[in-house]
């Protein structure tokens, strides 16, 4: 390419630049690092992961089979930091033991659901017309469909494994992401810079994934980080169908709902797993807020 331009002299300085893509990720990362909320959230998540990985080896009691009915529903004490449940099992140990499983269910089901939902929603919103109608009506069906029936079918067809509870929760979150993404896509696709990309001959997939998607990340991040809480709760809600964590597996959501019988005389049974969920969701939300800011070019690095 030889279109040089002698008319305008080269400027004296030319800053040498590293790989641009790396650079932009680095900038996102730098912004994240400077964002208090993101840092706190990130640390919390790392902490939770550490607990999930090594916690089970350190629990003071056997979280599964160590039943002691004589010491049931004991309130928190130095022996049992979080008290005991109706079989006298140590709630602290159970919460620790349940960390990995619970986080995995929450995280992966949303990851899966969001991925599929975002994809469908963006396609529907971008192409509009018939494709939109087909996808969105299908989403309507999914939304209106009782999740219990869906879960039941999944147990029947696929069995009740851990992976399948993730699938079940994911499937019911797909239409939610699809609708949110579609709505935002509808307005972003009308912006002039999308026209500019079309004028350049950009393929649809490039426009969709490089130009529309990054501009609708914030509702996705919000919905995803929040959905982790609902995912944990609804996964627990499915365990009675034989889907997901089976007793005595200490999954937080299940522990929380087991505690409902004792809300009056032993509220701690439900309280601690509940708090654990809040902490986890809080962590993801703080990181999400940080991400949102980091992707926003207008915030200061």
């Amino acid at each position, binding site marked *: 390419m030889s279109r040089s331009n002698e008319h305008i002299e080269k400027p004296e300085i030319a800053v040498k630049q590293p790989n641009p893509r790396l650079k932009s990720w680095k900038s996102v990362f730098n912004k994240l690092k400077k964002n208090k909320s993101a840092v706190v959230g990130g640390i919390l998540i790392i902490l939770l992961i550490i607990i999930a990985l090594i916690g089970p080896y350190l629990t003071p009691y056997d979280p599964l089979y160590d039943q002691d009915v004589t010491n049931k529903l004991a309130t928190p004490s130095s022996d049992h930091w979080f008290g005991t449940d109706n079989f006298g099992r140590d709630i602290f140990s159970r919460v620790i033991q349940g960390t990995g499983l619970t986080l995995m269910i929450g995280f992966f089901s949303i990851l899966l659901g969001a991925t599929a939902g975002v994809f469908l929603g963006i396609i529907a919103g971008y192409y509009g017309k018939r494709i939109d109608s087909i996808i969105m009506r299908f989403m309507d069906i999914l939304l*209106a469909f*009782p999740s219990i*029936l869906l879960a039941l079918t999944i147990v029947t067809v696929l069995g009740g494994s851990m992976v399948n509870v993730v699938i079940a929760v994911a499937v019911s979150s797909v239409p939610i992401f699809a609708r949110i993404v579609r709505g935002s896509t509808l307005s972003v696709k009308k912006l002039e810079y999308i026209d500019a990309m079309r004028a350049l001959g950009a393929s649809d997939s490039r426009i969709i994934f490089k130009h529309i998607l990054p501009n609708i990340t914030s509702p996705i991040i919000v919905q995803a980080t929040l959905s982790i809480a609902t995912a944990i709760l609804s996964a627990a809600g499915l365990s009675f169908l034989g889907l997901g964590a089976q007793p005595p597996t200490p999954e937080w959501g299940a522990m929380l709902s087991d505690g409902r019988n004792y809300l009056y005389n032993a509220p701690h049974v439900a309280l601690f797993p509940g708090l654990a969920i809040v902490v986890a969701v809080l962590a993801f939300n703080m990181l999400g807020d940080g991400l949102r800011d980091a992707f926003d070019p207008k915030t200061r690095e």
Partner: protein
Amino acid sequence: MIQFIIRRILQTIPVLIGVSILVFSMMHLVPGDPAQVIAGEGAPQEQIENIRERLGLNDPLPTQYLNYVTSAVQGDLGTSMRSGRDVSAEIGARFWVTVELAIYSTILAVFLGLIAGIISATRKYTAIDTTIMIVALFGLSMPNFWLGLMLIQWFAIGIDLPSWVPFFNNTAWFSPSGWGSFSQIVLPVITLGTGSAAIIARMTRSSMLDVIGSDYIRTARAKGVKEQIVIYRHALKNALIPIVTVVGLQFGGLLGGAVLTESVFAVNGMGKLIIDSIQARDFPVVQGTVLVASLLFILVNLIVDVAYRFLNKRIDLD
């Protein structure tokens, strides 16, 4: 737009057919035989057989489906296998309860959520923003049954506080169960509204943050518009698309998913009906409720789509 609405209404037909086939096949796919559930344990084989025969469960599946659809098209949703009652009547009684519950809760959620979200956005990363976030996350992570039972404990049974506490020493203000009077409505609506409010608040916050830096917000400020109006009028309207979407989703979700709240407050709504009838393998009732729920969903989403147009005239739906 009229064409758009008409087209959407026409689209409900294939959707309903799709839903009914899906529900029908899934109900038959999962194990569990209505006759057996109805007969209960210990019933002799003969009795189960009789019931099966009566319910037409011995017909081939396509026949069963066709029979169902034929009468459904004529507006007859059949009768409950379990109680023999008319499905339309069973749904009808509960439909409005659920719709009312959903509407009130959504109103509450939108109200709280918008305000909290806007405050959060305009005071980004201050103590108040963090507080709102944490409260919201509690609201969200708290299962409905838990919040509901807490509310019942505090505001229906009442907690005894020392008598010097003004106003709050007898907090048995509301009724723990039922649906109808104001005192019955308050607690379930709060219970249901809280989770949605949390989602709406967070969505509002982020959506507002996306908008607040725009040039046209600067223009509004340059006009000397009051900050509140800048936020509530100029920014909010632009931020509203994802918010409207979640409101629609929440509302829709309430229509089908308020089971826990319904049972905690003994509200006789559709949520419980769906679950109960799925468990009893009461095919006609499941079909009927899912069909009605789908219709509602389509309607809600249609309204949401029309709202998009109102919010942003550039969006063309046709």
